[in-house]
Structure formats: C-alpha cells, structure tokens
C-alpha cells in the first residue's frame, strides 16, 4: 500500500495512544521531513532551513492529501517534534565530530550542509544542541511531560496553546511546566548537567 495510507493508519493508531504505532510512525515522518528539507532547499542554497516551517509544511501536505482530523494533527506534531529533535541533534553531533577532525570526510554532504545551517540557526539563539539534548534526556527521566513540552515548543515550533492541546493539559498547566522546564534546563546546561544528579537522580 502507498505510504500516505500507512502514515494515516499509524497516525490513527498513535492518536489513540498506541505507543508502538508512534514508534513505527517515526521513520516515515523522518523520511518525509528529510525529503521535504531537500526539496525546499533545491535552487536556493542560501535559504535558511526553518525546521518549524518544515514541520508545518509536512503536516499541510499530509493533511491535504488525506482526510485527517485534529487528533491526528496532535499525533503528527508529537512525532514530528521527536523527529526534528533527533535530526538536529544528530547534525549538531556530526558537526562536532567534523570540527574535532576525526571525521572521515572533509566536506559535508549537501543534505548535511543544510542541516548544519539549521543547527547554526538554532544555536545562534544561544542553544547548544548537544548539551541541551543531554539535559533534555535527564528531564525526560524525571518529568516526561515537561520534556515533551520543550520538544513540541522548541523543535516543532508549536505555540503554547497548541502544545498544551497536544499534551492534553490546560494552558495554565503548560505555562507552569514551561517556566519550570526552562529554569531547570538552564541550570542543567550551565552546571554541565551533572551537579543535580544527586537530587533528581535517574532510574538505573
């Protein structure tokens, strides 16, 4: 069967809370976003890749192609945020590797160059993606909902209201979560991310 139908099926399952479906969805959304990133950049290498625009564009394409409801939209943005996070963090790590000079290639692939540009765009706003990722993984262990909120906001570019809807919490709750997550992540990043292990711990 065609891929869009597969995506639909998985979105449907994922929107009912099917974890396995969400995992299966991941590679499909990943491919979609990569393909989209490539097609967006063809012909204009100078354009900055905007991951959040990509995520919205991917959703528009999918939802115009198929008849998908608001519950699928939430599942999609959830998956897309995770995908975007992984793409960007991988790209940031790869760049780090190249910088240290232990990579095999001198020149990044075209696809990677665009991703590197996206990483630059994110990091120019003061975010070290690799360290953020380390802190976010810790936050996931102690409070997954807050980590998901950061993912939706930071990587999928959802507004507070949309993110609250995606997580099915009230706007007020989302705002509280956001305040806490920001302060916590900032602390975790500036302290090298290890100092608080004693307090919040992480399950073995």
């Amino acid at each position, binding site marked *: 069967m065609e891929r869009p139908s597969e995506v639909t099926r998985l979105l449907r399952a994922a929107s009912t809370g099917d974890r396995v479906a969400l995992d299966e969805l991941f590679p499909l959304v990943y491919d979609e976003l990569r393909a989209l990133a490539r097609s967006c950049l063809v012909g204009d290498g100078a*354009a900055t890749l*905007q991951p959040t625009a*990509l995520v919205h564009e991917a959703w*528009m394409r999918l*939802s115009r192609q198929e008849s998908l409801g608001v519950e699928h939209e939430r599942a999609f943005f959830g998956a897309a945020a995770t995908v975007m996070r992984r793409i960007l963090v991988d790209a940031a790590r790869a760049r780090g590797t190249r910088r240290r000079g232990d990579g095999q290639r001198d020149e990044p692939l075209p696809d990677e160059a665009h991703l590197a540009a996206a990483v630059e765009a994110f990091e120019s706003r003061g975010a070290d993606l690799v360290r953020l990722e380390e802190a976010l993984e810790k936050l996931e262990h*102690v409070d997954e909902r807050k980590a998901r909120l950061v993912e939706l906001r930071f990587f999928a570019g959802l507004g507070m209201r949309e993110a609250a809807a995606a997580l099915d919490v009230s706007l007020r709750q989302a705002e509280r979560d956001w305040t*806490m997550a920001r302060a*916590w992540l900032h*602390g975790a990043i500036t302290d090298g991310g290890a100092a608080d292990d004693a*307090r919040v711990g992480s399950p073995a």
Partner: protein
Amino acid sequence: MSADFQAVEESFFGALDLEGPERAEFLSALEQRDAALHAEVARLLDAHATRDGEFLLPPGEESLEGVDIAGFTIRRLLGAGGMGVVYEAEQTGPTRRVALKLVRSLPGVDRDAARIRYEAETLAALDHPSIAKVFGAGAFQHAGLDGAWFAMELVQGARPVTEFADEEGLGREARLDLVAEAARAVGHGHRRGVLHRDVKPDNLLVDGRGHLKVIDFGIARAAGLERDATLATRAGELIGSLATMSREQARGDPDAIDARTDVHGLGAVAYQLIGGVPLREVEGRALADVLRSIEEDAPRPLRAVSPGVPRDLATIVDTAVDPDPERRYAGVDAFVADLERFRAQRPILARPTPWLHRLRLFAGRNPAATRLAALLLVVVGTATWYVSRAADETAEARESEHAARTTEEIVAGFHRSLFESVRPRRALGSEVTVLDLLEGADESVRAELSEYPAALAEVLGTVGQTYLSLGAMERAEASLVRALEVAGETDAMPTIERARTLGAAGMTAAYLGRYESAEERLREALPVLAAAPNTGDGHHTSALLGLAMVCEHEGRKDEQVKLLEQVVAVANSARTNIVGLAHASLAARAQADRRFEDALEQGALAVEVLESSGHPDQPDLARAREAYAGALMSAGRLAECREQQALSLASLSRVLPPEHPDLDAARFNHALLLQRLRDLPAADEAFAASVETRRALLGDAHPRLAHVLHYHGWLLMDLDEHDRARAALDEAVAVQGRYLAGRGKESDAKLGSYLAARGMVESRAGAPADAVSFIERGLAHQTRVLRAKDPALASTLTMLGTVLVESKEFERALPHLERAYDIRAGHPQLAGHWMTANSRSALGGCALELGRVEEARAHLEGSIEVVRAALGDGDFRTQTCIERMVALYEWTGEGERLAEWRGLLAGD
C-alpha cells in the same frame, strides 16, 4: 515524575509566587528544613531570573527587548501572529514610538530589500485618517533571524474592532459606523491601487478615543508572503485568518484576489459585529477540514445565526460574504452605498440568494443521491425565511415598484408559490417530501416562467438535478431535456451551467439504460467540465463516472477502467468521496472480470477512504460497501460480507426512496448472499422483489432486468421450482434479446449465459437432450463474441460437460470439460480458485467413467481439498466432488480411503 523532582517544583513555584521579603522568608525556612532542596530551588530561581532560558522559545517568540533593528530600539512585545511579531519600538531621527513589525523569512520567500522598500513606498502613499501610516520598511538580520521590517503608526490603546464593540457594549448603529469607516478606508486604498488582502477584526484596531485604524494594509504582499510563499509555509498566518478567509484566498491563488476579496473581508467583519459569531468556527478544527469547508460550504445566512437582524441588512452582509466573488458586490464602494441605503431606509440593490441555488450547491456535493432529511431542513429553513418575508409584504409592495424584474427575483417569486403549494394544509400532519415540492414546481414552472427563459432554464435544470439525486429518473430526464431546450433556443444559459445540466442529463440517460444518448451528452459536457476552473466540484468526476457506467454496460472494459482511473487521478486532490466511489467502481469492475484479489483490495480501499471522509450515511459509502461485499462473497468471507451488506442496506434504506436503483442493487446483492447462505426462500422473495422493481423502473428491454431474472432462475432451480425457473429464464433471454436487437446486435456473452442456464433447468427436470440443445445455443452466442480463453466460456463449457456426463455421453463431455479446466487453470486470478478445482473434479469424474483411472486420480486428488476448504463439506458441490472420490476408490479398490471418503458423504 519523581517525588524529589515534585518537591523541587512545588517549592520553586512556592517561592516564585512570592516577592521581596516574603520570598526571602520562604527560602530561609526552606533552607533550615532541607538544605539540598533549598540549593536546588535557589539555583532554579537564579536561572529563571537570568532569562537565559529564552533560547528555548520557538522562533518568533524570542524577546528582542532593547535590541536595535534598522535604527529602531525595541521596547516591548505587542503581539505575535503567524505572519510576524509586532513590537513597540522607538525611533531616533524623528523621535517617535512606532509599531515595528518583523516578518521572518520563510523558505522560498523573496528577501530582496529593494523590492520591500519599493512596496513600502506605495504603502506610504496611502494617506487616510483611518489607515495606520507606514513610515518605512526594509530587510533585517539579527542573531540568525532575517526577514523584513515594517515601521507603522502606533495605535495607542488598540483593540480589535470586535473586542472594542463588545467591551463597550455598542449598539447596531455604532457597529455599522465602524464597518462603514473601515470600508471607506479600504476603498481609499483601492483608489490608490492597493488591496488590503487581509481584512479581519485583528487588522481593524480601535484606539482609546474610539477611532478606527486599518493596519497591515497590503503588508502580506509587500513582505513577499502572498506572492512567493506557498500556502503551507503560511500555515501560521492562515490560522489567524481562517475565520474570515474568502474562497479565493484559501485556494492560494494570488491572481484570483481582487477588490472583491476585501469586500469579503469587510463583510466577514460586519457578519461578526452584527451577528455576534465569527463567519465560521475554526476553533479545534483541523486545518484541512477548515480549508475544505471554505471550499465547499456557504456561510450560514446571517438571519439564521441572528434572527433579529433586519432582512435588508442581512442581505447586504450575506451578499458581501458570498463564496463566489461574482455574486458579491463588485467593489467596496457598492458595499458602502448599499449600507448607506439601508441606513437611510431606502431600497437596497442586493438580492437574496435564491434558496434553490443553495439546494443545488448541496445536491451537487452529494451527487446521485441526496439525503431527504437534510434537504427538508434546507426547505424548512427557507420556508421560514419566506414566511418572515411575507410579514414584510407591505413594505415589499412599495419596493417592488422600483425594482426591475431580474432573473433572481423571478426565481424567488416562483419559489414562494412553490412553498405555498405545500403549506399549510397539505403539510399538516403529513410529511412533505422534496419530491412533493418538486412535483408542485414541475406543474407550475413552465407556465409561470415561460416569459423568462433564463430563469426557466435555471429552475428546470435544478429541478432535474434534484430529481436525479432522488432517483426519479424519468422526471429528471424530462426536466433536464426541457432545460437544455430552453437554454438552446434562447442562448440564455452560461456555458458551464449548460455543461452541468448536460452532464446530469447524461447521468440520467445512463441510469435509464439509454446508453447512446448518455454517451453523446456526457462526451459533449466533459471537455467543458474538465476545463472549468474548479474541477473539484464533482461535476467533472460525476460525468466521468457516468461515462464509465456506459462503458461497463457496453462491455468496453478497458475504457471503463481507464475512465475510473482518470476519476481517481482528477479527484485525488479534491474530493475524497469521488475517489472512494471510483475505487468502488474499480472493485466492481475487477469483480466482474474475476480479478478477485484486485476487487478485494479496491473494495477495502473504497470503504476505508469513504469511512474516513464523510457522513456514515453517505450513499457513496454504501455503494463502496456493496462492491466490497461482492468481493468478500467471492472470497468466501461470508460473515464480513453480511456485515458490510447489513450496514449498506440499513444506510440506503434510511437515505433513498424505495425505488432508487442503488437500493435495488443492494437488495439484489443481499439476495445473492442469502442464496449463498442457503436461505433459499428468503433469497427467492428478495429476487422476486428486485425483478418487480426493475420491470417497473427499467422497462422490458433493460439488461439489468435480464440480469436479475438470470439469478432468480438459478435460485428457482435450486428450489426445484422448474416451471418458475423456465419462466424466469425465458424472460431473461427475451429481455436481453430485445436489448440487443435495439442495438442492432444478435449475440453477447450474457445472452449465452442465460440460454445455458435455461438449459440447466431442463437438465434438472430430467430432459438432458433439451438441456444440451439450449446450452449449445448459448455456447454458440458466446463463441461469436468472446476470446477463446475467456472465463465466461469456461462456465458454459462446464455446464455442457456436466449435462453430457449426466446423460452418460462421456466421450462427448470430456473435451468440453478439458477446455473449461484449461481456461480456468490458465487464468491468473482463477488458477487457485475453488471454481477451477470444481472444474477439475468434474473432468476427473468424466475421465474415470472412461476408465482413464490415473488421469482421473490426478484430477480428483488434486482438486478435492481446494473445494473442501473453500465451500466446506456441507456444500452440495463439495458433496458431488466427494462422491467422485468415493467412485475413484471403489474403482481402484482402495478400501481404507474408500471408507474415509464415504464417511464424509452427507446422510451416511
């Protein structure tokens, strides 16, 4: 969440909610109680205070306070939308406070600073007290962000116009003042050659002193968003404008946007200000859903959401927000002028939208069958409108002296008489159906409208299309043909309207079995419908489906499949239910061609598409279920088949009149299932009913009547009602013969099948010689028209062989049976099917009778398990095959096997 983390969070917020000495007190108490917890909370509070966490904000929400951009120092955030962020900023040079809008670059958007400045110069030339001034514009780059900036007049104490009106408790007059003020400002822009392109409440701000300012005039275009960005990359902005967006904007075609787009925006603002609700509800709906609704649905008439609004005012607003730009005011000035007329209590120029136009829009979206209940709602709703209109009769009389008798007015007058025909006595205590209404219309329309051909053609066309959707084919035909005649005589109908009427007439003819005239009409309509700007409206695809129907009946299979695939391709982006319907037809085609795997796949796809794309009672879904059920039946999945049929029958019975062909087809399919489930008396009743319906509906020369008679004949054979079986099959042969004669033909495959079945009656009745003669006649017809390998031949050959076997003419039988098996075994979709195995078993039985034991053994042993698995041991065909196994082992004397197979014979 870990318990420790929770404690940290609680204390963090506990401290955050306090200030100054209270917070210090809270923290020192915490430190005494739990030093580690205190340290962690203090660290979080520090982090919170530094605001360094802002890097986490999504793009566009970064705080830029204190940052300089293009000579402006940003002071505070005023608001953020999808299109950009607006800050209050300070300019040095001329020292002033401005609203600084930053529009971020998007992929593919032109960031040419020179062009932005050029556009800004045009905008700066707008000089109107109600338009916020543009001071300048350009491109900017800052910390990884880049895009365009626009410096605009800062509106102090700005509130969106709707908010202002509600909070200040403004009355209708004051609200209309605001609408008129905004409209005059927009009109000023138009005279300077600038369209606003995004008129919505958020862009009409009212300042602290109650003055209205139009902001963002032409900004979307100047920022390159409209010209360069795809609809998708504007998703964020779209969401802000969806509630008021016009159809041409939703389509994302910048060339379709003109002054009437701004008329729509102003109308939408008026709609919300006067009606109290947004033009459309977008909260909580999926974007794709809203876009589809903009494309397909007309907004609710203003008086439907707010009955207290005066009729003329409602007409003005409804006209301004009409989805079709052609039906709106031609410009903002005309809109303002009509508003002024209303306020001066003079007659307005706009005319109410004829309800039949709405009805047709509705029927057009639900082609081929329309839900009566929904139609009645429309009818009742409009009837109410007319009743209230009648209350204004006196005022009306005065106005009508001035007004010209336009087509629309005539149509409206006609509608009134239409409703009078059903109210109130006739309607009292009895249900008035749309059919009743239309009958009334049909009677009076020709007389009343004879002097107004344009109106007459429109009404007749609509009446005809509605008849078509109700399944009243003869009446549809009469109305549509007359509509076309009137249109032809006077040249009064627009080309596209005529093509639609012609398409509907083609569909009607196809339903009535008048395939030649159907094809002629559809072929004439198709090029026009295909070239129409909006092919997603269903007329084009319906016509393609109609033509596919013609091809199906004429046996032009390849052409049919090609047309259906074209439907899928054309409709793929627009109307999922048409796609679903095409999949359903492809399933039916595959089923007829015995491509069972394809039929299952297409059928499942059709049901899946339609289940996810509309109302559960939509007739298209029922049709898809029917096609899928047919495939399931062939696959022997009877329980699933029964489930699909039950759903479809229940739904069709709710929605369609009893004599509708689709409902009849569903009953026919159900009869087939009953037969398959061996509930023969029930199946007999169902087939007989279907025969009656078709005889009455289709006449005595229609292939669909012959088709059901054929099946009924087989069933009657199973019931041993030989006389009735003979009568049914004789009639089938006669009907099909008349149908062929009418087309100048003598033979087709079906006529052959009916003759063969007729022969089988004689075989069952113990007259094998007569049987052979009938079947041979049938075979002769089929040989004339079918390819040598056609599976339809295999059925007839099998019958011939079987009858010959029964009359002990084994030598004669064998070659027929061999050929039948060869055809089936060589057919890609039939190779593993139980019918093929059944053929093979018959061949084995015959070989055994001729003493060719090893050949017989190979055939019999190679086929029996397939038959058993597919039909079960209880089926009479399985029993026949088992009897042959018994005969084989009796012959060879294999006692153990003999006992085993004997044990499987029923009754043993």
